[in-house]
């Protein structure tokens, strides 16, 4: 089996669903002949035709709104927003309609759509191309939020997102698009959307992260191991709704918790996880838990992006503080 990158795994999952489910339709800007600005839809229009892979006019609110209408009428639209910095016009459609149509119609109508978007900093991209805004969507009831951190999880989670009967916002970490290769079997096996993934087991401290930051978090765990500290690393993967059971079970063993994310700290998901753990397992904690996050600032242009993003050093330092506390 050939090893493929995360972006190739996305392409593989899209092709799989297009081939196996006639209800699946892709739409977005530049996803047709151009194959997407990151090449995630390359070859798909050629292979499946212009009625399955649609280049749209340039309007994000339109894309989300169309997807809702298509989904409610029985299609499974997979819409691409070219960069997460351009996703904001979809917010009205996602919060006011995608997330509530099932509730308001008591299940008469539903919205099985996926909104895919590249996200995060670290690739020297221009203005608005480096945003991490998953918390915005995690705050929307009725909307699932998912982000993969490896080619295999990208394939399995995207299949699950497309098959899920409810709206899913799927953040693809641009920094990981081509960073690693992995063998991915095109077996159509979806991964569950309701569990975290334990990437590394450890008894001393629990590190929770997702998306591109998994990379730094695993590296921090390796550095900690050099001094005999065994960190457990959990990839949250499904950012809403969150599988707290896996996190609580881990914290019950380690008694120590650090959450790492690239998005700004205030009202970020790290605060949410710390609060839930404090409420449900506060007495399991041997020390106050800590967040390592982006700062509460406008995502800087790329000359300062590495000063903005949590570094391995910051994660290691935070872990040591929790271990000493």
């Amino acid at each position, binding site marked *: 089996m050939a090893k493929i990158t995360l972006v190739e795994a996305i392409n593989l999952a899209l092709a799989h669903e297009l081939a196996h489910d006639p209800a699946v339709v892709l739409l977005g*800007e*530049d996803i*047709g*002949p*151009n*194959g997407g*600005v990151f090449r995630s839809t390359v070859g798909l229009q050629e292979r499946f035709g212009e009625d399955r892979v649609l*280049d749209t*006019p*340039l*309007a994000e*609110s*339109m894309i989300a709104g169309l997807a809702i209408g298509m989904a409610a009428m029985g299609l499974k639209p997979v819409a691409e927003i070219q960069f997460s*910095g*351009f996703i*904001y*016009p979809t917010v009205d459609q996602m919060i006011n309609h995608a997330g509530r149509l099932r509730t308001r119609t008591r299940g008469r109508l539903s919205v099985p759509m996926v909104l895919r978007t590249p996200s995060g900093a670290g690739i*020297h*991209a*221009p*203005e*608005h*191309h480096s945003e991490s805004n998953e918390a915005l969507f995690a705050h929307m009831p009725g909307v699932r939020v998912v982000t993969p951190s490896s080619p295999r999880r990208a394939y399995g989670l995207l299949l699950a997102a497309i098959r899920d009967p409810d709206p899913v916002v799927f953040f693809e970490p641009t920094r990981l698009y081509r960073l690693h290769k992995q063998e991915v079997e095109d077996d159509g096996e979806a991964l569950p959307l309701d569990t975290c993934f334990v990437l590394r087991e450890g008894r001393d401290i629990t590190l929770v992260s997702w998306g591109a930051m998994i990379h730094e978090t695993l590296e921090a765990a390796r550095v900690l191991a050099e001094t005999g500290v065994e960190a457990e690393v959990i990839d949250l993967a499904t950012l809403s709704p969150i599988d707290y059971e896996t996190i609580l079970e881990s914290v019950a063993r380690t008694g120590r918790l650090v959450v790492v994310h690239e998005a700004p*700290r*205030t009202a970020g998901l790290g605060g949410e996880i710390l609060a839930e753990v404090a409420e449900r397992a506060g007495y399991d904690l041997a020390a106050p838990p800590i967040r390592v996050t982006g*700062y*509460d*600032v*406008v995502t*800087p*242009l*790329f*000359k*300062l*992006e*590495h*000063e*903005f993003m949590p*570094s*391995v*050093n*910051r994660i290691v*330092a935070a872990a040591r503080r929790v271990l000493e506390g």
Partner: protein
Amino acid sequence: MPSIVAHFDVPLVRCLDAEGRVVGDLPPLASDTETLRTIFRAMLRVRLFDTKAVALQRTGQLGTYASCLGHEALHVGIGSALRPEDAFFPTYREYGTQLWRGVKMSEILLFWGGDERGSAFAEQPHDFPWAVPIGTQTLHASGAALAFRLRHEARVALAIIGDGGTSQGDFYEALNAAGVWSLPAVFVVANNRWAISVPLAKQTAAQTLAQKAIAAGLPGVQVDGNDLLAVRSVLDDAIERARRGHGATLVEALTYRLSDHTTADDARRYRSKEEVDRAWAEEPLVRLRRFLTERGLWTEAEEKRWTERCQEEIEEAVRAYLATGKPSPADMFDYTFATLPVGLAAQRAEALAAVEAAPHG
């Protein structure tokens, strides 16, 4: 038979053809030889700057860059038509306008080099910085025009937007607001036929983009955007109309994106070489050069001298850009609010300490 209750026309204005021959009424500017020469020099200057910026990106000295190749008549036309007190709302490739209005070459390079100081514009007080989210700037222009109206200032707000941008709701909202309040605004659509890989035919079923003005109660005019004289003729009228309080105009300028969308794009994936070759035959510098040369207003020797002067200026700007040190991490925090909140001050200290502890990550 139903009666016709409304009827509309969309004029197309051209002055020079691709060879520089006169094909329409010439505006007064055509006989203002000194200004015309200044404008042509500015068009050459931005072409040379643009070429250098692409080369810098190709050699790893600049981030992704959006070229303005082919848009020089339109961009310099806008720059030269506006007054300094007017306000300009760009997208991301109107260097010809910006350079005319005081933005420095080194600032443009800093922006695309990932440095926010590029938008600080030392010598341009009120123009907006680059708007990368497609369409949003048109509303800012309407808002600025509303401010000018409410304060009885004889100023004009001009926004530019691409053909792709006309698909955004913001664009229609901006036109509508400008119509409702009869705002001193001008909206220019740079119809360069492509929105990255999406051709105009997939963007709209409308016959022209100029007619999108009509539903907002504004006049819409099409102009050959590669014809500097036509661009100025149409813009001078639209700006004058706005300044006199007679309301906004939508100008659709027909041009062509001769470059890739940005340096991160490869247009060969989606458009033919033949199409691009045809567009080169229409490019804006050739026809104005001919027009000037044939009237004895421009010579090859002059062009050579001017090119050398521009190259020196550009090299100087590149040196200034490359010599600009990395911004301080404190900059991320210091312009977030007018005064730094306590909590953010703590994060600022944390960030500086993190950099101190590990200067290289």
